């Protein structure tokens, strides 16, 4: 017969100081783990949202980033005419020639400036990305006008609607703020391709071409056809795989965080073990009584084991509560592929919280096993005699 769980819960309540202190220790461990997982989940969401499975990104052969890639206007004319590219209602192919470079913006957090991606594109490119305007309007062709992503606008005081930024050969007016959903467009600045390429003295050295295939079947065909084309020296790849490779930007912090969480977990398991051993020795009399009442050694073992898991789960829940406010935080991570900053939100998702609870349960199980075994092995008579 099993000992009711309410017995364990009452015991945890009676020794509330010890319970709370042990649980808080576990909570901190779980919170650290959750913070790291939330960081990488947020980063992954930002990159995954940027990659449309129908989009093909064309870079120079061997160039693994838009920043170091060069695509000429002549190549673009060839690329644009490929079969398998979707057409806009007006009959024009959904293909956008783009130029990517960097500008530096300063903020209170980064007084020395942080680099932000500047993208020269066209209305076709904006339409393909399904971007929405939060305020203002889109830039006009041939004008020194730019539209900033919403994270850029919120992180840099200099990048507000109506203000001017100085880069290239002079000043540019911010005429709009765009919302790219979760995508990296939030961390970029968009302007007219022709205006930007002439300002940076690169009228014919553009960075990439973005294409939209008619359907998913056309994507691999389009990619292999362009690879084999002798007139072109390009490396086409799906936009999704391009952005997926950039998630590695968070790898050092992720690695460090998980390493810390595991070490902290060892420490917390020791602490939980300590608490449970104390519980077992304090309740020797009770254990004896339970045995006299007819509960088996097995049920004592299960009961103490469960108590430890419960204690740890309480810590897990507290840990989730500590980590939840992270959802409100936006942070930025630089990456060495785009050489610019990607802003993203921490995302404490239900799946992550579940992982945290599971982690705490494992921790409690590890800490509770030996004390529970000791409790079960106690002889009835000695147990009753212990004070």
């Amino acid at each position: 017969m099993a000992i009711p769980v309410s017995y364990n819960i009452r015991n945890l309540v009676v020794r509330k100081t010890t319970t709370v202190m042990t649980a808080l220790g576990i909570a901190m461990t779980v919170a650290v783990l959750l913070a790291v997982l939330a960081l990488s989940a947020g980063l992954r969401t930002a990159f995954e949202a940027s990659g449309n499975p129908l989009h093909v990104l064309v870079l120079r052969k061997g160039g693994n980033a838009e920043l170091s890639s060069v695509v000429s206007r002549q190549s673009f004319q060839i690329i644009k005419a490929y079969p398998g590219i979707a057409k806009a209602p007006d009959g024009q192919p959904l293909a956008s020639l783009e130029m990517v470079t960097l500008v530096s913006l300063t903020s209170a957090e980064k007084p020395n400036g942080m680099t932000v991606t500047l993208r020269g594109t066209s209305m076709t490119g904006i339409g393909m990305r399904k971007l929405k305007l939060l305020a203002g309007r889109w830039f006009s062709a041939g004008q020194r006008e730019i539209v900033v992503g919403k994270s850029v606008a919120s992180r840099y005081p200099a990048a507000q609607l109506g203000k001017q930024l100085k880069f290239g050969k002079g000043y540019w007016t911010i005429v709009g703020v765009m919302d790219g959903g979760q995508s990296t467009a939030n961390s970029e600045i968009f302007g007219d391709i022709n205006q930007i390429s002439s300002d940076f003295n690169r009228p014919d050295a553009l960075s990439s071409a973005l294409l939209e295939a008619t359907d998913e079947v056309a994507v691999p065909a389009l990619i292999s056809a362009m690879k084999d084309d002798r007139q072109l020296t390009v490396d086409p790849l799906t936009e999704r795989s391009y952005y997926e490779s950039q998630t590695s930007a968070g790898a050092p912090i992720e690695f460090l965080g998980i390493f810390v969480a595991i070490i902290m977990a060892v420490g917390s398991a020791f602490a939980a073990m300590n608490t449970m051993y104390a519980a077992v020795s304090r309740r020797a009399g009770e254990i004896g009584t339970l045995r006299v009442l007819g509960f088996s050694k097995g049920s004592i073992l299960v009961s103490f084991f469960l108590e430890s898991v419960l204690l740890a789960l309480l810590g897990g829940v507290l840990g989730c509560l500590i980590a939840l406010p992270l959802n409100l935080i936006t942070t930025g991570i630089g990456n060495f592929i785009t050489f610019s900053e990607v802003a993203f939100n921490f995302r404490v998702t239900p799946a992550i919280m579940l992982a945290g609870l599971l982690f705490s349960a494992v921790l409690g199980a590890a800490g509770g096993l030996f004390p529970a075994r000791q409790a079960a092995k106690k002889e009835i008579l000695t147990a009753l005699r212990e004070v």
Partner: protein
Amino acid sequence: MFRYLPLAMKNSIRNRRRSLLTIGSMAVSLCLLGVLFAMYAGLFMHDVTPGSALRMVVRHKVSLAQTMPYAYEARIRQVPGVREISSWNWFQGVYKDQRDPKNFFARFAVEPRAFLTIRTQMDMPQDQRKAFVNERTACVISKDLAERLGIKLGDKITIIGDIYPVTLELNVRGIFDDPDALNTLFFNREYLRDMLSPGRRDQEGTFAVLVASPNDVTPVSNAVDAMFDNSPQPTKTESEQQFALTFVSFVGNIKMFLFSICAAVTFTILLVSGNTMAMSVRERIKEVGVLKTLGYTSEGILSIVLEEAAVISLIGGVVGVGLAELLTLSVRKTFGLYQPQLADMSISLSVGLICLALALVIGLVSSFVPAWNAARTNILDSLRYTG
């Protein structure tokens, strides 16, 4: 204060299992703190070597990914205080299989003669220096890299370019020893320039500058940046050390990250240690009554408990610092490859002492409440207490 030390030591080995678990828990947490402190020290308080103090780096003001004209080299050379200058280009490229992190190392294109002057502390035989200067396809590699990849003098190294659209076929002509240049290959920039198109040839990523004395650092920085301030490619000139820090801050707010983790760990140790002392005091309330009857004062009881906590946490601290020393070895091997500042990270004497001091403070602070409770218990109540 340490009058009761023998008694405190005896007390701490009374419940051996609990003391061991507490020491284990503290040791693991303090080991983590030690590694994080060492990491912080390695990143932000790196000792400046005499050679490094004289070296400066010139880069494009906006970002490392933007280039400056080759002609800057001659103009910077004219600045008073500049002893030597060479362009310093990150080649990147792929050596063998990129997916194996073992094959990751830095590759720079430099002007050999200037390079040998700039690396004042480099240890390399005279004939190897000569070979590097005279042979167009020569390269020199650091000793740690040669050992790791098993490369000997005279071996060939092929690197397929990605940023640069060329393939390098290099001969290893020198193996050098330089604490500031681990895991690095240098090759002759003329070899690269010959293969590039005229437009591409004159774009330089960074310039390395050697100044005559440490007092020249600030004036040279100001003079160089002022010279190019109004050009299309403005520069940022900083000491080698500051330049390395720019890299670290680019990855994200590492300082904040390390700080939050240290705070979480410290808080957890406080809880663990406080909990243990509370448990051990609770078990001994009767004893406290006996001691008081024998004539021990409240202060005496207070210091017995505090000293016991101090003994346990100090032992935990010593074990923790030992563990941290072992752990830094492996961190050095993994992270050091990517972040050169961490390549010689270690638990220095000051980091070790800080950890021990922290352990002591945590032990005393966390046990103060239980100790205070024990000290002020009334004799009669404590003798009557049954646990």
